[in-house]
């Protein structure tokens, strides 16, 4: 395992490009950064994060759940309130709107945890701290 550590972003990016150009496979490279350096994913030719699918799924699930729940409850024990029809779409939209955002953001958060393998017990117990260095590890 080879380790390259840099104190600045420019040197780190150059080295990374150099490694890729010299034919090292992107799969063998791991990178650690104090903040997200934009452009790294282009150099390593990574795919977009899959978190977006979780966001879409969560939001759709939330909308459906909001409408399904409100409609189910008014049928479960039908009581006419305020002389309005049992299924009154405008007020239910407000509930469904809230559940869309609630379930959408919770599932997106869950998706992030799954995809980035967090919480990671191994790293909670002890982790190698790279601090503010930009680190490239090559297997």
């Amino acid at each position, binding site marked *: 395992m080879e380790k390259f550590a840099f*104190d*600045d*972003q*420019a040197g780190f990016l150059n080295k990374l490009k150099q490694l890729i150009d010299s034919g090292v496979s992107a799969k063998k490279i*791991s*990178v*650690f*950064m*104090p*903040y*997200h350096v934009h452009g*790294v*994913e282009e150099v390593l030719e*990574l795919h977009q*994060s899959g*978190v*977006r699918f979780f*966001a879409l799924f969560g*939001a759709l699930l939330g909308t459906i759940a909001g409408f399904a*729940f*409100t409609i189910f*409850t*008014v049928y*479960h*024990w039908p009581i006419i*309130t*305020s002389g*309005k029809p049992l299924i*009154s779409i405008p*007020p*239910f939209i*407000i*509930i469904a*709107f*809230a*559940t869309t*955002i*609630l379930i*959408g*953001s*919770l599932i*997106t*958060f869950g*998706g*992030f*945890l799954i995809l*980035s393998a*967090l*919480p*990671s*017990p*191994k*790293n*909670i117990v002890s*982790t*190698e*701290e*790279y*601090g*503010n260095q930009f680190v490239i590890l090559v297997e």
Partner: protein
Amino acid sequence: MKTNQKDYFLQLEKDVLAAMEKPTRAYWIALGISGTLLLIWALLWAYQIKEGLYVTGINNPVGWGIYLTNFVFWVGIAHSGTLISAVLFLFRAKFRNAFNRTAEAMTLFAIMVAGLFPIIHLGRPWKFYWLLPYPNQRLLWTNFKSPLEWDVFAVSTYFIVSLVFFYVGLVPDLAVVRKYTSGIRKKIYSILSLGWTGSLKQWLHYNKLYLFLAAFATPLVISVHSVVSWDFAMSVTPGWHTTIFAPYFVSGAIFSGTAMVMTLVIPMRKILKLEKYITVDKFEGIAKVMLFTSLIVTYAYLVEYGIAVYSGNIFETSIFKYRAVGDYATIYWIMILCNSIIPLSLFVKKLRRNLVYLFVVSIFVNIGMWSERFNIIISSLSREFEPYAWGLYHPSFVEVGIFIGSFGMFFTFFLLFLKLLPVLSMSEIKEEVY
């Protein structure tokens, strides 16, 4: 590139971590005062629960006193947190980085305080869970056609999403704190930072997550206070039953929230010595948002009168006349002075960049926005349709004490936050500078 990147990062971490070190005497005094107020709050509420709601000034016709005023006030305060952290993030407004952590914390604490007020207002607060839809022996469900039920959904969603957003923003910074602490504190921060290593994979997913959470939270800025406004607008009470209520409340919420951010951050910056990161330019950005929303609020005040006069509706016209010259006229004119007139001075660039001045204005705006909610709620209820059923309302000492105590609760949480969590978003500042 500015100075040496490594040195700058180290300095930033040192400065932010220094704020979390052993509290000074001033901190203990502040915590003591807030803690005392919090205690008063708890004792008074206990007293009210024991005695019943008769210890308040609430009466018939004014069934919503300052508890509901406080609810709307604190929910409004909460709004700028999401505005600054989510909306300004999507707009890539760089001045947000200095404020976002504080503003998000403020949002959380303000919703916690706000959420308690409708419960305090209940005669039997221990039955608050009846507001939630759950399967029960009586086979009854909540009434989803009621604006009060929308509120339950809107406010609890707002709290949970803000909490997730706040926590997600903290994760990389908690990993930095983990590095500098030892013993039990290190263990706690290690667990809270979830084993964050800063690998590329984590950052990629993290950035997408942050973007999506911002996108999810943005509609909440508009929806939550709209729903709160519908608590009023859905009724037929004169002065409440208008369609402009939602935008009027939302802009008012952002207005009061930016004011509270300044009230908190101007002293915090000085006490924690963060002048280097929270620069005057950034305050000017917030001051502009405040000025802009002040203009919208003023416009809404005028439009309300326009609607009342144009409608020809005798009840609408008389309630608006009553607000300006009736029993609560003082509160009304305080509102106009604090929300519409004083903020106009922020058109002067020199004043906008004077932090002492901004602090003073922010206090006025806080007062003005509380008065606005008082004015809307109390004046309309005390003069509804039937002169026979008119009545006045004066808050009792219990209500006033609980109101003041709610500031104690808010500031206690905030002071604890200052010492337990990093107050600036370090990873975002690092990214912004380089």
